C-alpha cells in the first residue's frame, strides 16, 4: 500500500510536468502559426500593392500619357483652340502626377534598386517637397543589405510614422535617425500633438506597424517626446 501510495504521488508530479510541457509546446506552436499567418498576410498585402502599382504605372499611367500626347496633336489642329486645351492639359498633367505618386507609394522602386537607406532618404526628401514641414534624415554606420521582404516592412513602418506625424499630429518638424550596427535602429521624432502616457495611441496604423515589427523579430516602442510630440523607436536585428 505504501509503495502504491508513493507511486501515485510520483505519477501526479510526473503527469503535471508532462502536461505543462505539452501545453507550452502547444502555445509555442500557436504563436509560431500566428506569426506565420501574419507574415503571409503582410507579404500578400505587399505583393498586391506591387501588382496594383505595376497596373497603375504600366496601364493607366501609360494611357494617360498617350491621351496627353493626342491632346497635344489635337491642339495643333485648327478645330480646337489652345485656350480650350490648356486647362485639360493641366488637369491631365496633375492626374498623371497623382498616378505616379500613388504608384511610387505603393511600390517604392528605389527600395528595389538601391536599398533601404537610399529609399528612406528619398522618401524623406519627397515628403519634404510636398509639405511645409521640415523633415531631416540622418544616418550613422554602414548600411547592411537585408532581405527585400524585411526592407519593405521597415520602409512601410517609417512611411506610416511620417504620414501620421504630418496628417494626424500636424507636426512641423520631423526627424528620422537611422543607425546601423549589430542591429538597425530607426528613431522617428516629431513635434506634433503627441499623446499623454495614460492615453496610448490606438488604431489600425499602429497595429500594422507593431505587427510588422513582430514579423521582423524586432521591437517597436512609441512614447511621448518632450516637450511635445512623439518618439517612435524601431529596432530590428540584422542577423
Amino acid at each position, binding site marked *: *500500500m*505504501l509503495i502504491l*501510495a508513493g507511486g*501515485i*504521488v510520483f505519477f*501526479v508530479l510526473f*503527469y*503535471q510536468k508532462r*502536461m505543462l510541457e505539452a501545453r507550452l509546446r502547444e502555445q509555442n506552436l500557436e504563436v509560431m502559426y500566428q506569426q506565420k499567418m501574419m507574415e503571409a498576410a503582410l507579404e500578400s498585402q505587399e505583393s498586391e500593392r506591387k501588382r496594383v502599382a505595376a497596373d497603375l504605372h504600366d496601364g493607366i499611367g501609360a494611357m494617360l500619357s498617350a491621351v496627353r500626347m493626342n491632346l497635344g496633336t489635337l491642339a495643333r489642329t485648327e478645330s480646337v483652340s489652345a485656350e480650350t486645351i490648356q486647362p485639360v492639359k493641366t488637369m491631365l498633367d496633375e492626374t498623371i502626377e497623382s498616378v505616379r505618386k500613388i504608384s511610387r507609394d505603393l511600390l517604392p522602386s528605389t527600395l528595389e534598386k538601391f536599398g533601404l537607406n537610399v529609399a528612406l532618404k528619398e522618401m524623406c526628401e519627397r515628403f519634404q517637397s510636398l509639405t511645409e514641414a521640415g523633415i531631416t534624415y540622418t544616418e550613422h554606420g554602414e548600411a547592411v543589405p537585408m532581405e527585400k521582404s524585411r526592407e519593405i516592412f521597415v520602409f512601410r513602418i517609417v512611411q506610416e510614422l511620417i504620414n501620421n506625424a504630418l496628417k494626424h499630429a500636424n507636426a512641423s518638424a520631423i526627424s528620422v535617425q537611422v543607425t546601423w550596427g549589430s542591429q538597425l535602429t530607426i528613431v522617428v521624432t516629431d513635434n506634433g500633438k503627441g499623446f499623454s502616457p495614460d492615453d496610448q495611441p490606438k488604431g489600425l496604423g499602429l497595429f500594422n506597424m507593431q505587427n510588422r515589427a513582430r514579423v521582423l523579430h524586432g521591437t517597436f516602442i512609441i512614447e511621448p517626446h518632450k516637450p511635445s510630440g512623439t518618439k517612435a523607436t524601431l529596432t530590428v536585428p540584422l542577423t
Partner: protein
Amino acid sequence: MIFDISNYVQGTGSLIISLICLKRYRDKPNYIKVLGFYGLNSVVFTLFQEISALFFENQHIDTLAHAYVLLECILLSFLYYLIISNKRFRKVIVFSVLLYCTIYIFSFLFFSKSAHSIIRSVRDLQMIIFSMAYFFYLLHELSEDNLMRFPMFWINSATLVFFSGTFILSYFREYIIAMIGDGIADYWTFRNFFRFAFCLVLAYAGWLNLQSIRAQKSG
C-alpha cells in the same frame, strides 16, 4: 523505552504542526488554520493520555484514543472540504463524514470487540479515497504553478502515504495482536515514528504557506 520515545516524538510532531500553522493566524488561509487545529487536537489528546496514564492508571486511555480518531477524521475531512471548491466533491465529503459517524456509532454498539479496528481502518480508507480524489482534482485543474511549492500537494501526499501505511495495521490489528502479542509495541513504535514523519511533512506544508505569506507582504 523506545516506545515511550516514539510517543513523545509523534506528540512533538503534532506540536510543530500547530505552532507553524497557527502562527500569524489571521493571515493564514482556512485550510492551514484547520491543519493547525488538527495538530493542536493531537497535542491535547496526547496530553490527556499522559494525564490518564499518570493519574488514572490508564483507565480512559482507549476512550480518549477513540474520541481522537473521530475528531481526526472530521478535521481532515473539513480540510478537504475547504480546499475543494467543486460542489459535487463537497457533497461527497459531507456524506462520507456522516457515513463515518454512523459506522463509528454502529461499530461500538454492535461490534464492540472489533470497534477499535473498524473505526481506524474506515478512517484510513476514507482518507486514502479523499487524497486520491484530490490528486485527480489537482490534475484536472492543472495549475501552472510548481506543484512542489504548493502546500496542499504536500498535505495530500502525506495523507495518502501515511494512511496507506496505517491502513493494513488498523485493518489487521486483532490478527497482528493474536500472532505477535507483546511484539505489537514494536509495530506501534514504527507507526509512531511514521506519524512523526507525517507530521513533519504537514509542518513543511505549513511552512511553505508561511513563506508565501511573507513574500506577499514584502512584495
